[in-house]
């Protein structure tokens, strides 16, 4: 941190002071002259949306700044102002160096043109002259590994090839200050790792990068400093770890609130099944929640209503699904040879999962209750409430595996 502040003091590449941008969203959009003519006599109604409010910061030369925040927090608006796409209402932006004018890969490519034609067109949009592109042409194709496809139309490229070409071109455009919006959201994992390698190279070359992302993993790994935006305001800026922690907490609170509302709306009515599945709770450290981190302990508590007092034993089970309906894990009391009698008195049963190996996703349980010999199904809950798992890890796949390298 101390080091970063020192750098800032010497030579900022970007200096932003008191930047504000408000969008006026008209209630009725007048895109006809008639509408405009009539509305002269009416008082215009607007909803003012403060996209960014009074934001000030510096980015030092060679610094890698991450901007995180939820949807609508103003991070893209901020980046668009840095790129010159939006003109701020108030405040000042001073930039020392050539800024990459684009925020997304492949903007400006035309599907009807060949790769060759697109390189010239895209290059021109990124600030290269025809001569520049001629000099770099072979390099661009080589990096993208598309030499054989130079005269193929862009629309016939696979999405991977399209992204490769776009990425290669943007690297060769060589801006001193790079602005990027969710670049990693596109492309397959192979390409993503290529992106990451490229980030490493930018860091080594001390290029100034401003990266807007949802992905805490990337931000923590590459950024020297991170800024957290919330509702257009700068909530926190500084050390990646602590800013990302704030962000995760912010997200969890939000999830919790939404889940509570959801649960309320799902209060179930009783019928006459011998045993009925009631409310389902997810418990973390003794408290009900629906937001977990990879590696947390999760207790699944299922409330049951017993209508037939004659029942002494039963089979109860739970199956874990991801929200893409992938069956991840399932067990029941018969399989685990558990005595279920006590559950009848308690009115609920619990299954404790230690150290959950789940990754960034939403999950739910299917709950089943049947007679001990499985001859009669008492009740079945097709989908419990959803819980969310967040992960700090960059590794891939659907579950976290404990592993070591030798």
């Amino acid at each position, binding site marked *: 941190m101390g080091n970063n502040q020192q750098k800032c003091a010497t030579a900022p590449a970007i200096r932003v002071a008191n930047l504000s941008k408000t969008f006026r969203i008209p209630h009725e959009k007048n895109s006809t002259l008639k509408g405009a003519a009539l509305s002269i006599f009416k008082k215009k109604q607007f909803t003012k949306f403060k996209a960014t409010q009074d934001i000030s910061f510096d980015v030092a030369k060679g610094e890698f700044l991450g901007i995180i925040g939820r949807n609508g927090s103003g991070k893209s608006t901020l980046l668009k102002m840095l790129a010159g796409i*939006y003109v701020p209402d108030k405040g000042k932006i001073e930039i020392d160096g050539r800024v990459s004018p684009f*925020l997304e890969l492949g903007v400006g490519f035309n599907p009807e043109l060949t790769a060759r034609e697109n390189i010239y067109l895209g290059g021109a*949009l990124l600030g290269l*002259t025809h001569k520049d592109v001629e000099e770099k042409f072979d390099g661009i194709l080589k990096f993208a590994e598309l030499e054989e496809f130079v005269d193929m139309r862009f629309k016939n490229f696979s999405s991977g090839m399209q992204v490769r070409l776009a990425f290669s071109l943007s690297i060769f455009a060589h801006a001193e200050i790079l602005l990027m919006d969710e670049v990693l959201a596109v492309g397959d994992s192979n390409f993503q790792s290529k992106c990451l390698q490229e980030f490493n190279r930018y860091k080594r070359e001390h290029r100034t990068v401003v990266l807007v992302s949802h992905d805490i993993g990337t931000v923590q790994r590459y950024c020297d400093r991170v800024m957290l935006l919330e509702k257009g305001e700068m909530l926190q800026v500084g050390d990646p770890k602590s800013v990302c922690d704030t962000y995760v907490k912010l997200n969890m609170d939000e999830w919790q609130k939404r889940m509570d509302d959801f649960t309320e709306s799902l209060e179930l009515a009783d019928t006459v099944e011998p045993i009925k599945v009631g409310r389902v709770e997810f418990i973390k450290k003794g408290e009900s929640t629906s937001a977990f981190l990879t590696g947390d302990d999760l207790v699944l508590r299922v409330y049951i209503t017993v209508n037939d007092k004659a029942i002494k034993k039963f089979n109860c089970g739970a199956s874990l699904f991801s929200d893409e309906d992938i069956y991840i894990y399932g067990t029941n009391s018969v399989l685990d040879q558990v005595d279920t009698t006590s559950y009848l008195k308690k009115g609920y049963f619990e299954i404790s999962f230690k150290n959950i190996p789940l990754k960034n996703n939403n999950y739910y349980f299917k709950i089943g209750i049947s007679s001990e010999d499985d001859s009669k199904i008492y009740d079945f809950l097709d989908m419990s409430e959803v819980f969310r798992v967040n992960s700090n890890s960059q590794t891939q796949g659907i579950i976290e595996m404990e592993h070591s390298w030798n």
Partner: protein
Amino acid sequence: MLDRSNYNLSLIRELAITGFKLKFKGSFFGYLWSLMRPLFLFIILYLVFTFVFKLGKAIPNYPVYLLIGVTLWGFFVEATAVVMSSIVASGDLIRKIYFPRIVIPVAMGLTSFITLLLNMVVVFGFVLFSRIPIGPSILLLPLYLVEFYVFTLGIALFLSAVYVRFRDIGPIWEIVSQALFYGTPILYSLALVNHVWLVRLMMINPLAQMIQGIRLSFLGTGVVTSASVLGYFAFIPVALVIVTFLIGYTVFQSMAKKFAEEV
């Protein structure tokens, strides 16, 4: 590392060439179509005005006279229409990348202008075919064409900027250009208009000044021009061209800052 204006020129060039390529992509006859259009219109008008209304006899070299008028008018209508919607059509680009917005209408105007230049080659062929002697007046042709482009761009810049907020400008412009079509000597000759002051008034119209000028540069004689009608006041249509362009440019640049939000 880069000269800013150099970059803009490069961008205009790439966009104009791309526009030209895309215009004919996937069509079998390609560029021929843009020749066909004025050519067919020319044939129809020629037949109507030579055999039905007998206008042709009153105007020397009427076929070439007509072809020039129709070709230039075709460019004017096409370029203003294409450029008018160009900012809205490039919405994706404008929202995601920064470059001087004026590059788009300038380039799209050039795309149409390339077609006009190729059409001029066809006109030139007709002139030779009709055994009309080419005189030194042809040297003025490039000047007139540049003037024509500047005038068209001025109007189109205004239209394209306004179109972002008010789509009604589309049909309004159609009506206005229809009036212009009949108010400009495209089909007829000013020699047929008897009223001196009416002729003077009509020649103040820059379109008339340029179309008549281009006709004169091909035909050498027999064309009423603004110089011959207005005398010292022949500068008025040229001044109007400059004023039109400046207004279009100013309106466009002042509205361009908000394109990314509104488009």
